[in-house]
């Protein structure tokens, strides 16, 4: 995005994020991952983690710490979100079955896409988030086709059809965005009130 005037530039760089605390949060996430990985490498460590619900407890702690660092200590939101998402994926899936790892990764991508679809104000970014969600569903289908039905791969067939429909959806959605932009000269989602009852 080009900066049109120095005033805009000032506005953006008005409150720079606290980078030291951001790195601190990344370090905490990394330490948590190392800790739970160290437990899981011991004999019977996976069972200890599962019986004590340690993965879910770590997930809660990482989330609360992330929200604290984001809002109380003014960290960079994207770094906090990325570190928290990646750390919670590692913490939740260390020592689990392969199928759970794949499905959890798909669920994480789906959740990120859902959040982005609701929060984004640029219509094209909303379409990108929808593509992300469709891809997460594809990962789910192919995981099931490998682990549950490896002989005749029905999940992959469904994934092919989803790919087709996603291509059509992207083309039509972007055409709609283009014609909206031509009529209203904005792609801000909050200004599209044409179809609002």
């Amino acid at each position, binding site marked *: 995005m080009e900066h049109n005037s120095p005033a*805009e530039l000032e506005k*953006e760089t008005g409150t720079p994020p606290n980078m030291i605390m951001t790195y601190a949060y990344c370090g905490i996430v990394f330490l948590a991952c190392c800790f739970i990985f160290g437990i899981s490498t011991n004999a019977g460590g996976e069972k200890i983690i*599962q019986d004590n619900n340690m*993965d*879910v407890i770590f*997930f809660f702690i990482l989330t609360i710490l992330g929200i604290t660092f984001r809002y109380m200590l003014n960290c960079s939101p*994207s770094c906090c*979100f990325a570190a928290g998402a*990646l750390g919670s*994926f590692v913490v939740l899936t260390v020592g689990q*079955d*392969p199928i759970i790892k*794949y499905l959890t*990764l798909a*669920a*994480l*991508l*789906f959740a*990120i896409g*859902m*959040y*982005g679809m*609701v929060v*984004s*104000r*640029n219509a*094209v*970014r909303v379409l*990108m988030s929808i*593509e*992300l969600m469709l891809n997460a569903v*594809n*990962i789910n289908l*192919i*995981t099931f*086709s*490998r*682990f*549950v039905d*490896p002989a*005749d*791969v029905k999940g*992959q*067939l469904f*994934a092919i*059809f989803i790919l087709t*429909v*996603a291509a059509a*959806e*992207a*083309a*039509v959605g*972007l055409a709609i*965005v*283009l*014609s909206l*932009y*031509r009529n209203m000269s904005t*792609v*801000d989602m909050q200004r599209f009130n044409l179809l609002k009852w």
Partner: protein
Amino acid sequence: MFNVLDIVSAPQTEMMMLYIIAIIAVPFAVGVIFDKNVIRSGFLLIGVFGGISAIFLLLKAPFLALAQLMIYAVGITLVVVIALMLTSTQLNSEIASEEQDIENEPAIMQLMDKTKRAFPFLVAWLSFLTIYLSLRTEGWMPLNKAAEGVDNLETIGTALTTSYSLPFEFASVLLLAALIGAIMLAKAQTSVDLDPSEVQNQE
């Protein structure tokens, strides 16, 4: 014989590869959402789709991995980036002005606005947690843990031309309809609306 797919999909290395792909793909996906520069987030989308295609390769679906690379990482991302270039936006200043509006409000309204903004995050977080808990408590016992590398492509081709031929044809019709519809929507509408005789009258 040296085969990359065999090495990568050995049980020891497979999980390591999955984590490496996750380390690349998840921050890129977050960047797609949070990056202030929309064009850059469009290019980050290529990284996400490439990571997902590598996951397909790990899951022994090489045909779908290549289709993913061709359709998503090249085709759809190209269309998205071109659309972004056509709709150049000034959303940054609008978001900044909204934040300034919030700063001018009284404290309790500020708190309520922040709560309202945190609601989508709460929904996404809860759905992720629910999916994970349902996955973890599920008994995955009768699973085929080491699926041997059967020739997927032959199975897919046979199924697409025999038992799934009708949906395949429907997909082609859908693509044609989407193509025509996209052209109709994106076309400039000035020449369609005006009748030639009316144009002459106006002149």
